[in-house]
């Protein structure tokens, strides 16, 4: 068929144009794939803020005022930003507690429990070394906290791997048990007789406290959090272990058929996850409270779940998301004072954000705007090629 075409085309020019269009579209797809999670997450955060704004407006408040105040309370001044940093440190660590097992397809939500157990273990370790130097004390506290938290969630992983117990439910039940255990210990065997209306362990001693980082008013816990996220990223994306873990999460049967020791992988990654949350408990004891008591149950574990989901279980993504949610948490007090909002309003915002993020999962690979843009660009370059 030799239908006369309206535009005279040279075969070479046409195929060249098609090729370049294909190349550029491939490039764009790569670029899109890389940043798709970022844009979708960002869009979800904005959508959640919009919904919460409607909620505030129904409550008779001007959402813009509230958000302005929140920004000021979270990132507006150097002081408030340091407060945000301080709060984001435990969030990074508890988020890893959900994000690491998620690579194997496990949904662990027991970060709160591992944090509490880690905090108590760290306090016990700190108190049992009265004459050691602060460095020794802190190192022992770190190992005790991480180890106890690791064993706690490691047990969840073992129950899953060897008995098929659903890890989501068991890890949350373990949190309640951990809190009961802590209450039992600080009311009994570990109680400081001087702590009257708020039972606590004895203080680990001012000399042993985890101090601020040089030049900052933020304790070293932030450093632990960032390092843990970086290590987790390298472990999960750049090592054989991480590859095996992701393979297990992607297709359990294929992983079993190729001889991976799936049970060991499950238990070990749960151990690492718990160790991260246990470190958060150690940081809370060593840098903030100085002793283990009910203040450890501050909801960091639950906010950590949200951080992990917003970051799409990517350990590197955890860092900025923890900053964002730490900022929201830090501004909560200001909202209470200036707008007379209940302290639960932060929880409402977090809840809305959680739902929107989960809903946004359905958008992946379906961003039609991009498809249109790509098609338009392909047409254009084809035309350009044709003209040339």
């Amino acid at each position, binding site marked *: 068929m030799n239908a006369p075409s309206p535009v005279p085309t040279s075969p070479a020019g046409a195929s060249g144009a098609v090729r370049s269009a294909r190349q550029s579209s491939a490039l764009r797809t790569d670029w899109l794939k890389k940043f798709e999670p970022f844009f979708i997450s960002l869009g979800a955060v904005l959508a959640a803020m919009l919904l919460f704004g409607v909620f505030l407006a129904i409550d008779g408040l001007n959402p813009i005022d509230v958000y302005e105040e929140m920004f000021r309370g979270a990132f507006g001044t150097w002081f408030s930003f340091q407060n945000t940093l301080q709060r984001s440190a435990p969030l990074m660590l508890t988020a890893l507690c959900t994000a690491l097992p998620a690579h194997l397809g496990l*949904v662990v*939500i027991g970060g709160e429990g591992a944090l509490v157990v880690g905090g108590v273990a760290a306090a016990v370790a700190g108190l049992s070394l009265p004459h050691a130097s602060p460095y020794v004390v802190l190192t022992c506290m770190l190992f005790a906290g991480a180890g106890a938290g690791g064993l706690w969630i490691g047990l969840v992983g073992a*129950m899953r*791997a*060897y*008995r*098929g*117990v*659903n890890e*989501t*439910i*068991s890890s*949350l*039940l*373990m949190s*309640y*048990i951990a809190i*009961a*255990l802590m*209450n*039992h210990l600080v*009311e*009994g065997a570990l109680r400081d007789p001087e702590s009257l209306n708020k039972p606590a362990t004895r203080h680990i001693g001012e000399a042993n406290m985890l101090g601020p980082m040089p030049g900052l008013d933020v304790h070293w816990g932030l450093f632990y959090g960032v390092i843990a996220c970086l290590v987790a990223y390298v472990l999960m994306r750049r090592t054989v272990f991480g590859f095996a873990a992701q393979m297990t999460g992607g297709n359990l049967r294929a992983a079993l058929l190729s001889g991976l020791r799936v049970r060991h992988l499950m238990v070990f990654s749960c151990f690492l996850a718990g160790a991260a949350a246990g470190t958060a408990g150690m940081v809370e004891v060593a840098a903030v409270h100085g002793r283990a008591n009910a203040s450890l149950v501050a909801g960091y574990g*639950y906010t950590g*779940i*949200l951080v992990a*989901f917003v970051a799409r279980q990517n350990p590197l993504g955890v860092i900025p998301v923890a900053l964002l949610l730490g900022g929201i948490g830090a501004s909560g007090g200001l909202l209470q004072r200036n707008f007379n909002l*209940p*302290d*639960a*309003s*932060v*929880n*409402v915002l*977090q*809840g*809305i954000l*959680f*739902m929107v*993020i*989960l*809903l946004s*999962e*359905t958008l*992946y690979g379906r961003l039609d705007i991009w498809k249109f843009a790509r098609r338009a660009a392909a047409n254009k370059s084809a035309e350009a090629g044709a003209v040339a």
Partner: protein
Amino acid sequence: MSAGLGNWGVPVAVLAGAIRVSTPFIFVSLGECITERSGRVNLGLEGTLVMGAMVGYGTSYLSGSPWLGVFAAGLMGVLLGALHGLLCSRPRVNDVAVGIGLMLFGSGLAFFLGKPLIQPTAPRLPAIPFGFWSDSSQVADALRVNALFLIGVVLAPLVSFALRRTRWGLIVRTVGESAEAARAMGYDVNRVRTLATMAGGFLAGVGGSFLSLFYPGSWNEGLSSGQGLMAVALVIFARWDPIRCLYASLLFGGASALGPALQAVGVTKGYYLFNAAPYALTLLIMVLSSSATRTSADQPAELTVAR
């Protein structure tokens, strides 16, 4: 008062607890049972429970009628169930994760909206004194049964009958066993599941209203401590059978009452540990009743929670 019973007070109090504490367990587990038989898990019933408690209390306070409060709590549960169902009907949205989100969202919203309800006292649900024949105030107290408990006890065989012997039950079970078969028969899988989640939400909301309107009988932020979640675990333990859900709820109610009962007779040592008994019991039962290599024959095949 308790002198007449001495240490017998413990089993009596555990029995009383089994009746009193178990009621929310019965409702939530029956609701979750319906939802899970349709092939979906709603972990958010913890949030529904708290939200139901708040709405029930608020409605009872404003209208003066506790039964209206129970109904309003159920409606709230339907709304939250619809939210869960609709979100999960979108492709690639994970029901377990939505449940976690709903748990945080429900309790956050309940604390936010329920702030003004902490002070006032709302009219509570009446109790039926079945213990009138006893001279012991403890026995009489233990047998002061709430009508919701009786409704729950009657509801269990009804749900069982509905699931097994009615057309609706058959559709729900078909969807839960094989989405493809149900689709081939012309049923809208997502719609059936959403409706099943809404029905489950209604029951969980009613269970929540029991918390604020009968026992403990007031609204505060520490009202629910994982009962909604334990009820989900309990459904697995009861192997998706409504009648067994009832028995398991009674067992859990008794376990939850152990700590306070021992404290009442003067055993204060290990109070917190006894309070952890129901969680530990749930965990133990899950370890004993699950298996790593085979799935229970009673499990709906479309369900992911107990892989």
